């Protein structure tokens, strides 16, 4: 483990920690709403990580100003575009998960998946 470089890349390290927090929330939380928040944290952490790829210290956003078109002037535009796509994907997935939650609650009056599973076994549907 290259500690000096890890400290240089502290932004990316934070993104990875956030990813871990989100991932474990999605995996381990009992409450569905918390799971969905975990999913959102995980996604944003990935986007942060991706956007950091394009960042170059001291350069401007890639919007051409005064006809300056040198590669020296702007940051890398590719990650921004990819993240833009990703954000939209994550909001649609969130809406879908929330509507699943509402349906489950309307039927079983609980947010705990394990409880629902046990109830299903009892119903023997």
């Amino acid at each position, binding site marked *: 483990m290259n500690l000096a470089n890890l400290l240089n890349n502290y932004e990316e390290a934070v993104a990875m920690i956030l990813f871990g927090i989100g*991932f474990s929330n999605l995996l*381990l939380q009992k409450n569905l709403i918390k799971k969905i928040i975990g999913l959102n944290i995980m996604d944003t952490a990935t986007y942060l990580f991706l956007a950091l790829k394009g960042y170059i210290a001291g350069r401007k956003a890639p919007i051409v100003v005064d006809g300056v078109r040198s590669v020296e002037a702007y940051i890398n535009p590719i990650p*921004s575009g990819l993240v833009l796509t990703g954000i939209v994907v994550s909001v649609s997935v969130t809406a879908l998960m*929330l509507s699943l939650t509402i349906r489950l609650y309307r039927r079983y009056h609980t947010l705990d998946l394990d409880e629902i599973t046990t109830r299903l076994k009892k119903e023997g549907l």
Partner: protein
Amino acid sequence: MSKKLSEEQYRKTRSFQLKQWLDGTKDPFLDTVEMKPQEEFREDRTVIRERSEEKKRLLEKVYDLEHNAEMRIFQRIYRIFSVIFCVSLVLMLLIAVSNLPTVGAFERPVNNEVAKRYIEDGLDETGAVNIVTGMILDYRAFDTLGESHVLFIATCTVLILLRIDKKNSKDYMEANDRTHEPKNDIILQTVARILVPPIFIFGIYVILCGHLGPGGGFSGGAVIGAGLILYLNAFGFAKTERFFTEKIYKRMSFCALACYALAKSYSFYTGANHIESIIPLGTPGAILSSGLILILNICVGVVVAGTMYTFYAIFRKGGY
């Protein structure tokens, strides 16, 4: 001798409304907003009690740690493994990050000829001043085409789950929670009246200037969607349904997506078959420039605005 007003005419005058308002007998905005019975949907107390008792029994069964040894061991092992998995995942990622190129440096593999061409020739080749917009709507348009369909399909799944087609059923009563909310909130309505037009104008500006500055179809569409949600909250479904229903949403998004798909198929087809595209790029910086990007931005904006509003409306009411 003053002209005598008939009772009906008198009721229409401002002074009568003011008097009524001062008396507190009538709300001057009463005719212009949604009126619905304000009773709350309430379940029978016995039903609630039965349910909570059953829940208690069930919880005892689920978390019955004394008798259900198999379950307990399984859950404990599952949790331990998951925690180990998560921790080792984070450690692995941190180790990987510690070996990555430094953040913010220029000398890294990412800054290669691809990014160089986007920056140096992007303005000439796509006509978009905002290079990111030019990239996602022209160079890598296939991704974005897929992405707007992600939004569309998410709306469809939400419709499947939450749209209730049987009116007056118990589910419908429970789903439509607008019926038991305080109505005609004058503060909310005034604020909405002041705020909604600027929000719409800002959203349209962000969409139309997507190729000239920061913004574009996604952000502008989301802003307009938020404006619609605010309007809905202030004035109720009866008002919004005059101009926006599910049918209109479907037709609108169909038109926008079809337009998008057609425009992009044209450019994919001509590009792959080496046919010169006839769409002019225009002067960079002008509003009518950059070829198809403006049209695509509008299409995406329409889809996103409709989708955001539809999510909200279906969540609130189970169809609109």
